[in-house]
């Protein structure tokens, strides 16, 4: 079976974020980057399915030239080849335009299954997989915790709220958005890293795919949130902070 995994490169979780002069994104020169965490789980799910059923895993990524590192990592972990939609500012496409880019590139490969993480760590829309499914006319399911492929289609375990789950079945091809924690992530082996260098990375542009960025975007500006609650910050050395906090919890909050 042929599986496409849509992955995104995001700014490292630990990076301190500063709004850039445009007011619509953050300063990312010099920032560290990593694969969007839920996408790492989607990639792992794809690699495990390939090992069970034989086939091919294609990593699909829309992003700037620096995203090559994330693509290279996916290849080192075991993806067979990759498609890089090179776009310096993917944000300018908005969520619908970006999903169009990904869907167009995916469609040409006629995959049996498309996997992606349930949401991104930066914009956090949580919509890309579902929009792709609609654009491609495919069934989908979201927040998936288990995937079993059978002769007739795919059976998944979908996470509901408050500790509930549900199984559902659907025919292939289909799109699934994968929840973090569905599996245990593998590390790239030295052999994998070596092999990745010779794997194919197909480069495409928005123009190749015939997708244009929308004239206006809904997002106006980004900014640091205003603090709504007055937080009492406890200062001092660790020992002083600890003593002060325990004293507050004992005599003011009275919970100890």
């Amino acid at each position, binding site marked *: 079976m042929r599986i496409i995994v849509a992955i995104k490169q995001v700014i490292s979780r630990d990076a301190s974020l500063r709004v850039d002069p445009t007011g619509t994104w953050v300063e990312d020169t010099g920032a560290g980057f990593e694969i969007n965490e839920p996408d790492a789980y989607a990639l792992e799910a794809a690699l495990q399915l390939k090992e069970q059923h034989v086939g091919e895993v294609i990593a699909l990524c829309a992003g700037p030239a620096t995203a090559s590192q994330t693509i290279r990592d996916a290849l080192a972990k075991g993806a067979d080849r990759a498609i890089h939609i090179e776009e310096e500012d993917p944000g300018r496409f908005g969520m619908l335009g970006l999903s169009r880019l990904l869907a167009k590139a995916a469609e040409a490969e006629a995959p049996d299954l498309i996997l992606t993480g349930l949401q991104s760590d930066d914009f956090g829309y949580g919509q890309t997989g579902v929009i792709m499914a609609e654009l491609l006319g495919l069934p989908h399911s979201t927040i998936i915790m288990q995937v079993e492929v059978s002769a007739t289609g795919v059976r998944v375990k979908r996470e509901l709220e408050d500790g509930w789950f549900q199984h559902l079945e659907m025919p292939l091809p289909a799109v699934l958005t994968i929840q973090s924690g569905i599996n245990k992530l593998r590390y790239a082996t030295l052999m994998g890293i070596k092999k990745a260098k010779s794997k194919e990375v197909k480069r495409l542009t928005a123009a190749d795919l015939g997708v244009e960025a929308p004239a206006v975007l809904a997002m106006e500006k980004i900014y640091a949130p205003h603090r709504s*609650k007055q937080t009492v910050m406890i200062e001092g050395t660790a020992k002083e902070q*600890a003593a002060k906090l325990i004293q507050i919890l004992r005599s003011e909050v009275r919970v100890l």
Partner: protein
Amino acid sequence: MSILAILEKNNRETLAAAQDLGKQLNLPVNAAIFKPDVPQAKLEKVYHLRHELLNEYTADGYTAALEALIRKVQPTVVLFPHTYQVRDYAPKLATRLNRELISDVVQLKGETMVRQLFQGKLNADYTLKGEAPHLASIQAGAYSADQIEPGTPTPEIFEPELTASMIRTKPQPPFREAQRAVDLTAADKIVSVGRGIKEESNIALIENLAKAMGAEIAASRPICDNNWLPMERQVGSSGQTVAPKLYLAIGISGAIQHLVGMKGAKTIVAINKDPHAPIFEVADYGIAGDLFEVVPALIEELNR
């Protein structure tokens, strides 16, 4: 020209948001329901979407039904609660209408909608541009349900034309994994741990603190994903929603998915190395510092 609120059970916040937006934009507010559970709120119309193919939720069925309703009613703004179910179908519905869904909105300011980026570290303003309908999903807790203006609307049945062949997924009944051994909702003190703990072997440190405080131990999602603590100890939108007297968040940055599960706590204390971490937005008391220094000091202080 109207507001349409799509309701599931227990999302009175969406109703409050719709009424508020209706006032701000001077538009009548309608609601759509899938179950005969009529909201007791002041509404112009309530559409009860009824069809045997809607008895159980499917993304295909709900999308087709709401597409038909939206084309008929032609609302200016459609608001959804930001639930897992909405996350499953609303982006599909928006795409079918050739629109974008502004998801996970935490605040409505007239035609400006505020949502969070980077796990709550930054906010972003979105404005309603282009042609109606505009679609947005509202985060639980963004609005207080007390703000609802009461009323006794009469529902109107809306029967969309659906055929079995439109529904491609076969859902099975929801189930719970093994019975929960821990009921965090009953705890009055919770010590909760997040990514900042770095390694599994460090969890013992937090366990010692919980013991010294007589508190239950809980965690944010990544900790349970790694199996460092069992899933049943997870607090947040996919875990338990708690409201203890004291919630001590250690090394938890405070993504919205976690905050919705604990912000009802009476007193919130946060310990985090990043003074800008969003957890401090909801904390009553904060310590910006290294948990590996502060937590041992707390244990020592408690055991004195």
